[in-house]
């Protein structure tokens, strides 16, 4: 199982499409930095089929004022939880 990191908003970069195509069926996707803009309800449709495997970093949501706008389908994790995800995954792949 790989953990993919994405730091771009789907509204301005199309790299999220490449991430989705490269993800295995068990891989997880962690949204960090400007990637967390993809976690709001009006944008999360860019990440279909990732139930339970889509994560967003709490600290980056909060600094951007998005904590209350994150879609319910996204699992919010803090920095400690982010580290935990990297423990579980064999490798991480960062997309930008």
């Amino acid at each position, binding site marked *: 199982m790989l953990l993919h990191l994405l*730091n771009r908003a789907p509204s301005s970069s199309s790299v999220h499409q490449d991430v989705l195509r490269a993800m295995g069926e068990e891989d997880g996707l962690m949204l960090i930095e*400007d990637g967390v803009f993809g976690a709001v309800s009006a944008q999360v449709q860019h990440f279909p089929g990732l139930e339970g495997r889509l994560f967003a970093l709490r600290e980056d949501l909060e600094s951007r004022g998005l904590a209350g706008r994150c879609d319910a389908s996204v699992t919010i994790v803090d*920095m*400690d939880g982010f*580290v935990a995800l*990297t423990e579980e995954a064999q*490798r*991480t792949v960062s997309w930008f």
Partner: protein
Amino acid sequence: MRYALLVLGGPYSHQAAHSALRFAHAAIARGHRVDTVFFYHDGVHNAAHFAAPPQDEPHLVDAWCDLQRTHGTALQVCVAAALRRGLLDAREAERHGKSGASLEPSFELTGLGQLLDIGQTHERLITFAP
């Protein structure tokens, strides 16, 4: 576990270096070791000795040095990426006819082979990109 980080973004211009630092501290807090941070591409600017950010902003170069002092983390900088971006230690500066150095002394210039070695000797390698 033994962690290593790869930082590809310069400080301030992008959040990459901030994220990497926060990740390092969170990993250490969970009982891991962060033995090495490798700086490549624009990430080499994290080693800028002359960086003088405003006083009300975090000083990232100092924060990396603190990480090394407190936790023994090695700070390695790709020499080829550093040279073309103007980060030279005293030896490289002399070799290129410049006086002084622009690399913070806590960082060491090294080759890309070291990055591949890190990938083999550390259990996790996490990349933070601009």
